[in-house]
């Protein structure tokens, strides 16, 4: 039995034109310590899926089982990194991280908690920016604080929602390496599910890549293993045969699902002109 088991998950949102089905029939297995990336285009329902896995929202149907227990809310051994940093602007970097530490380790003394938070920030190279407020930090530094906050709680599961999506390309590269090091440098393996729209990022960081089959409603395609030795570098990936193979597979899966959707959309449009029940026809 896998560490994280997702079965037949579905989610819809109410909209003026009736319920909008975002996800349906989503299935996923993630082993303990595995790093899995879910890759898809913008607006494909990736973030919704991650919120469901993390217990931030509840599904309409299907189950998420983590470590043998059904997910009903946010677990205390899980951490989350958002695309838009989600730091509290009235707190310094240290206070932002300490808030998470206090919630995760309520029985420790204040000094212990501060030490944990400081160490977490030092690990991402922000030891000299402890007292700075988020707005005094660059985008990359903010996301480092966010990573520090996530790792400071010593999570067993990590959910990353396009963690580097808001950063420029260069900052992105260095932070990807930082994340790889953070994941590698832990005594206890952390199971990670990352959402991204960058195939390159997924290859660099993951053990396995799962493409989104574009909807709506979206589901997940067959997973593509990334069997590359670590540590990996972007330069090395550019020429590696395995990496090229994985890249080709992911891109093929994504474009195939996009084309299928485009065809079905145009089919709906043409049948709408000729028949009285266009929707049934198209489906």
């Amino acid at each position, binding site marked *: 039995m896998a560490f994280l088991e997702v079965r037949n998950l579905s989610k819809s949102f109410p909209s003026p034109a009736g319920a909008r089905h975002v996800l349906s029939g989503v299935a996923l297995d993630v082993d303990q310590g595995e790093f899995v990336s879910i890759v898809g285009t913008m607006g494909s329902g990736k973030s919704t899926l991650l919120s469901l896995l993390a217990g*931030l929202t509840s599904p309409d149907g299907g189950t998420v089982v983590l470590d043998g227990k059904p997910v009903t809310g946010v677990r205390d051994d899980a951490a989350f990194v958002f695309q838009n940093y989600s730091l509290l602007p*009235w*707190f310094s970097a240290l206070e932002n991280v300490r*808030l998470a530490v206090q919630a995760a380790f309520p029985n420790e003394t204040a000094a212990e908690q501060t030490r944990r938070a400081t160490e977490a920030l030092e690990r991402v190279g922000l030891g000299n920016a402890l007292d700075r407020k988020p707005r005094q930090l660059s985008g990359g530094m903010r996301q480092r604080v966010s990573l520090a906050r996530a790792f400071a709680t010593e999570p067993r599961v990590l959910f990353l929602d396009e963690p580097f999506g808001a950063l420029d390309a260069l900052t992105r590269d260095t932070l990807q390496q930082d994340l790889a090091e953070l994941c590698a440098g832990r005594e206890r393996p952390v199971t990670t599910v990352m959402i991204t729209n960058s195939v390159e990022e997924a290859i660099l960081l993951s053990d396995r890549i799962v493409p989104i089959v574009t909807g709506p409603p979206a589901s997940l395609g067959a997973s593509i293993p990334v069997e590359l030795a670590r540590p990996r570098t972007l330069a090395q990936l550019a020429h590696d045969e395995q990496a090229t193979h994985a890249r080709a597979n992911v891109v093929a899966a994504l474009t195939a699902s996009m084309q299928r959707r485009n065809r079905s959309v145009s089919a709906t449009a043409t049948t709408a002109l000729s028949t009285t029940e266009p929707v049934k026809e198209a489906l």
Partner: protein
Amino acid sequence: MKRLINLLLPLCGIGMALAVWWAASVAVPDLPSPVRTWDESKLYILEPLAKRGESDQGILLLAYYSLMRVARGFLLGIAIATPLGFLLGVSSTLTKMFDPIMQVLRPISPLAWLPLGLVLFQKSEPAALFAIAVCSMWPTVINTMMGVRAIPQDYWNVAKVLRLSRMTTFTKIIVPATLPYMFTGYRLSLGIAWLVIVASEMLTGTPGVGGFLWQEYNSLVYAHILLAIITIGVVGFALDRLMGMAEARLRAS
């Protein structure tokens, strides 16, 4: 040069207002001219802390009585309004329950609340506090409520993901996020409280700027009415500026 102009322009405006006042005093014989007002008022201004009798006191002393009363009424008002605003901001059920009452109570004039306060408390002092509190609390209630509603989803997500307790969420997220809105509410509330004080002092005849104004009207010393009016304006302006400065500091931090 620019600074000089910035200084001169308001002076020009004041000069023009004085000219209008002077013209009006020529047309209406009962209205004292600016010069006569100064002559009859300078005792109160030059000896601002003198106490010659129950209501015959220096203007600063009178303003001080009014300010103390306003401070107490205002603090009472926001002590009720702030938690109420938080509750209404968090719970849409409570909002639906109390919104109609609030909308009806809000436009009621202090002159209408005061007699009710006198009936309830028998004495003029608590009645005045009651009127100030009830009239001035609404901007704080509404701004605090709006502030809580305007908290970005990101911050709620942080609370959820970090599994913060209700209390921690309140003190570490809701309060800091709402603080700027709350302070805008406080500034507006204080402005209203200062409006109410004059009316309530006039009605109850308690010593203070408003009480002084009403008494001097009854004694036919019209110059002192103008003195009181100007004092009320200047003090109100100063209060607003002080709150504005506090608010700006808060936003900057």
